[in-house]
């Protein structure tokens, strides 16, 4: 065991990890975080806290993680490379560990073009792979990027994201390999609708043996409406929504669509669990945290293992 991470422990024990997400509010009210956190208590093994997701300014991920931690939940600190240079990133990593946060998810971050400050300058001093390296180096070698000694290593379980559907498809597994090579210990994938294509990706991943070196958590997002399904297909880069799925959403009455979305999500989880190498599930119920419990339950993933 490298860290105190619940995720690491469930994986270590051979369990099936369930994580979900909590988007921090666009304001300073801690209650919003607490309310969302409460919805996930006992339902998931870890809660991702997004870092100014879609480049829209929100409460800092680190602060929201601290609030959740205070509630006794297991936060996963998301960190994007867009907004901070190597100095700030390392400093925040140290701070996170100091606050008892056990998990960090290293991401490139969405381009600011789509956010609320498209005028802003992006940083990208280092990229997500290098951020993974940075965390591993701080933790395992006790060295800053600059080479100096770290006094008090941050014991963080290192994760990253992977999009099995982004292009170019043939290097998706290789890219995961790079992340694993950099020190990544768990992966949360982009939401999966096209299970067949994901399966092919997993085969490539397993071929490289990556699933043994890193816990792969398959991402899912329930559709609220047929419109949302359509929007994701058309507008979210790297999203693969099969047409029949959209047809299925469209095929039911508007008021029944949320229910159908959840049904699809649960079915998807059930299919994903069958895929060799999949070690958990990451449920991204965007601004729909109240449904996570229902999904986890329906998918037969309750209760969650007790970890000390």
């Amino acid at each position: 065991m490298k860290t105190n991470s619940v995720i690491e422990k469930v994986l270590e024990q051979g369990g099936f990890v369930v994580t979900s997400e909590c988007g921090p509010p666009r304001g300073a009210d801690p209650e919003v975080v607490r309310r969302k956190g409460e919805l996930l208590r006992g339902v998931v093994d870890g809660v991702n806290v997004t870092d100014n997701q879609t480049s829209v300014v929100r409460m800092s991920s680190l602060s929201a993680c601290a609030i959740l931690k205070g509630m006794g939940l297991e936060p996963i600190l998301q960190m994007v490379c867009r907004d901070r240079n190597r100095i700030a990133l390392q400093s925040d990593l140290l701070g996170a560990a100091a606050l008892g946060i056990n998990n960090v998810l290293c991401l490139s971050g969405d381009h600011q073009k789509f956010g609320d400050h498209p005028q802003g300058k992006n940083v990208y001093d280092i990229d997500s792979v290098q951020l993974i390296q940075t965390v591993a180096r701080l933790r395992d070698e006790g060295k800053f990027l600059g080479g100096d000694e770290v006094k008090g290593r941050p014991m963080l379980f290192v994760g990253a994201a992977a999009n099995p559907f982004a292009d170019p498809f043939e290097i998706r597994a290789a890219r995961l390999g790079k992340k694993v090579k950099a020190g990544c210990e768990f992966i949360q994938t982009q939401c999966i609708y096209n299970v067949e294509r994901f399966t092919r990706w997993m085969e490539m991943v397993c071929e490289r043996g990556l699933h043994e070196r890193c816990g792969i958590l398959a991402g899912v997002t329930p559709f609220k409406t047929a419109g949302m399904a359509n929007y994701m297909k058309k507008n979210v880069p790297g999203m693969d929504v099969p047409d029949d799925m959209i047809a299925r959403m469209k095929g039911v009455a508007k008021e029944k669509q949320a229910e159908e979305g959840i049904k699809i999500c649960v079915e998807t989880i059930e299919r994903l669990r069958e895929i060799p190498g999949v070690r958990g599930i990451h449920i991204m119920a965007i601004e729909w945290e109240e449904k996570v419990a229902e999904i986890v339950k329906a998918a037969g993933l309750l209760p969650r293992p007790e970890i000390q």
Partner: protein
Amino acid sequence: MIVGNRKDFSEILEKLGAARRVLLLGCNECVTVCGVGGEREVGVLASELRLYWTKEGETFEVREHTLERQCDYEYIDQIRGFADDYDVILSMACGAGVQYVAEAYKTKLVLPAVNTTFLGVTIEQGMWSERCQGCGACILDMTGGICPIARCAKSLLNGPCGGSSEGKCEIDKETDCAWQLIVDRLKESGQMERYEEILPVKDWRTGRDGGPRRRVREDLKL
């Protein structure tokens, strides 16, 4: 070459303020080639100014002059004889040229008519694209000859990010994903193993982050 973009006419007018004697200074290098600040464009802007001010009933004088280069003082010196006849020098060169002209004519108001945008190449007649950011430490050998710093919206050294879709960048469908290009290129040239290597964090000191740069070559100095 350095690629630029003509400022809007309204912005130029605003910058000119009350100045009515204008020396419009073109440059026969990059900005000529990219159709923004050569003799023809100088003529067009001069014509616009004349049309506008004539319409407004103003008295004015616009002189057109194009230098071989605005980044060499000898050329800049060529306007010494008449620069003083004008209220402003409106330079259509890149930022370097504008500044160098300003340096040479310390008492003159020197204004830019062009926004300098990037170091790039001609894709086709009338279309240019960025290729280099002058980071000072080239890694093109590692990336199949395609610069991820200049051409990836996030300058990812170990891309692509999850936003790469059908060869295009997440920022818009017109922009190629640099990493798609890199991967294609590595594959074509049988160097896919290079992709597996993690590029280390970059030392940005050689770039602009290290402060304004200067280059000296002793043997060439006088």
